[in-house]
């Protein structure tokens, strides 16, 4: 059996894995990043919508190569068809780009490679290796061959599947109410506004929402997330999405170019995102906005934090849970309050009737909201419908 040695082994070549690899390699560490699939960034498992501001935070310059469409705003549509439009001038950080993930992910992996990280494709982690109880590496299948990669620390960046952490003894189990099951069509020949992302809320997508994210003039990612606790029929996401498309005048003549699926967690992140010789980043750590289901920015940030903290750990050759504490602190300081608040809000919104959602969307249109973001929207809701935010009003 082939054996490899390195300082850091990163499992997963998505945005979180690439950022962790890049920053650990920039810190002078010997990094191997493995990717199970045959291509980085494909097949797609994502709606590709992101806000704009965070790219500066992770020091990545927007590149037309991987920006598919620049949004002027977003529209929220209520069950009875009331709409609330957020324009860029008001929407600030919440409006942004629709990406080409297959190119964006490769661009980040290129940066990791340029920093010195090695990348092994078609290499899927199948377990962890312990010696005297201590994590010392991973087992993997590389183009069909069993291999072992020994490292001082493992970065679990294996996305929603999140198996590496579980093999290492960390509980990443989710409750059915904290999972959305998703399906998305790339649809062409549709009559949509190419400058606005649309979100449709209510019982048409139980516990989740339907999205229309334009990728050009008559083309968009049209998808749905349904809360697993509310799934009833079997293939619920497909059932609800097909029903919606059939009824929608703009979409019903559309044709599908691509079908993708995926899972997304809607909880506030793991209680433990580190262990001795293990760091968990991005979706694998369940660090995703529970309201929007957006996780790209979170994965990039946590990946970057992990790479930087690992660099510091290497100086003392200490990758214990205690030495990795700064990682835990960095992401919690930056994101935890917001994740928790949006998790509470999601729980509440998922329980509201279509009538109340109609009222809320109407109210948003009337309310004088400064910069429109989730926080300010919740503030407006708090004023008119205090019962909706009962129990977490302190966070708003």
């Amino acid at each position, binding site marked *: 059996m082939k054996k490899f040695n390195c300082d850091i082994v990163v499992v997963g070549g998505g945005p979180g894995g690439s950022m962790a690899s890049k920053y650990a390699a920039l810190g002078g560490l010997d990094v191997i990043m493995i990717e199970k699939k*045959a291509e980085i960034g494909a097949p797609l498992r994502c709606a590709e919508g992101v806000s704009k501001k965070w790219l500066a935070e992770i020091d990545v310059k927007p590149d037309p190569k991987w920006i598919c469409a620049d949004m002027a705003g977003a529209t929220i549509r209520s069950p009875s068809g009331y709409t609330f439009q957020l324009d860029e001038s008001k929407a600030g950080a919440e409006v942004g780009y629709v990406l080409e993930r297959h190119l964006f992910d490769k661009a980040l992996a290129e940066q990791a490679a340029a920093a010195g990280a090695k990348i092994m494709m078609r290499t899927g982690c199948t377990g962890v290796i312990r010696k005297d109880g201590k994590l010392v590496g991973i087992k993997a299948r590389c183009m069909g061959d069993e291999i072992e990669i020994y490292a001082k620390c493992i970065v679990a960046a294996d996305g929603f599947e999140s198996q590496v952490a579980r093999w290492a003894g960390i509980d990443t189990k989710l409750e059915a109410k904290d999972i959305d099951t998703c399906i998305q069509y790339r649809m062409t020949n549709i009559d949509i506004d190419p400058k606005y992302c649309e979100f449709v809320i209510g019982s048409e997508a139980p516990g989740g929402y339907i999205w229309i994210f334009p990728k050009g003039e008559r083309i968009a990612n049209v998808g749905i997330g349904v809360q697993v606790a509310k799934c009833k029929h079997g293939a619920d996401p497909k059932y609800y999405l097909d029903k919606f498309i059939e009824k929608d005048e703009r979409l019903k003549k559309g044709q599908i170019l691509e079908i993708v699926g995926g899972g997304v967690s809607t909880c506030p992140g793991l209680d433990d995102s580190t262990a001795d010789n293990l760091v968990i980043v991005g979706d694998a750590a369940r660090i995703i906005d529970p309201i929007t289901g957006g996780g790209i920015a979170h994965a990039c940030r946590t990946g970057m934090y992990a790479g930087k903290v690992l660099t510091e750990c290497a100086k003392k050759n200490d990758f214990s849970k205690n030495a990795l504490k700064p990682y835990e602190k960095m992401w919690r300081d930056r994101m935890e309050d917001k994740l928790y608040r949006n998790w509470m809000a999601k729980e509440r919104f998922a329980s509201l009737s279509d009538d109340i959602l109609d009222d809320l969307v109407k109210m948003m249109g009337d309310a004088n909201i400064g910069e429109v973001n989730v926080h300010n929207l919740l503030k407006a809701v708090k004023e008119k419908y205090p019962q909706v935010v009962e129990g977490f009003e302190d966070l708003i």
Partner: protein
Amino acid sequence: MIVSYDKCLHCGCCVGSCPKNAIYLNDYVLEFNKDCNKCGRCVKLCPVAALTMERA
């Protein structure tokens, strides 16, 4: 578990949702291990109903 590969999108939704960590997606093939306790969550949540429970 019976997997219909005519339907499966290889999306990994069942893998990450499995309370027992009993499913492995080997790129294009789903492998169920002995930890599977047939709770049926994966059957219920698969976005395209690619999974069905084996009859006992």
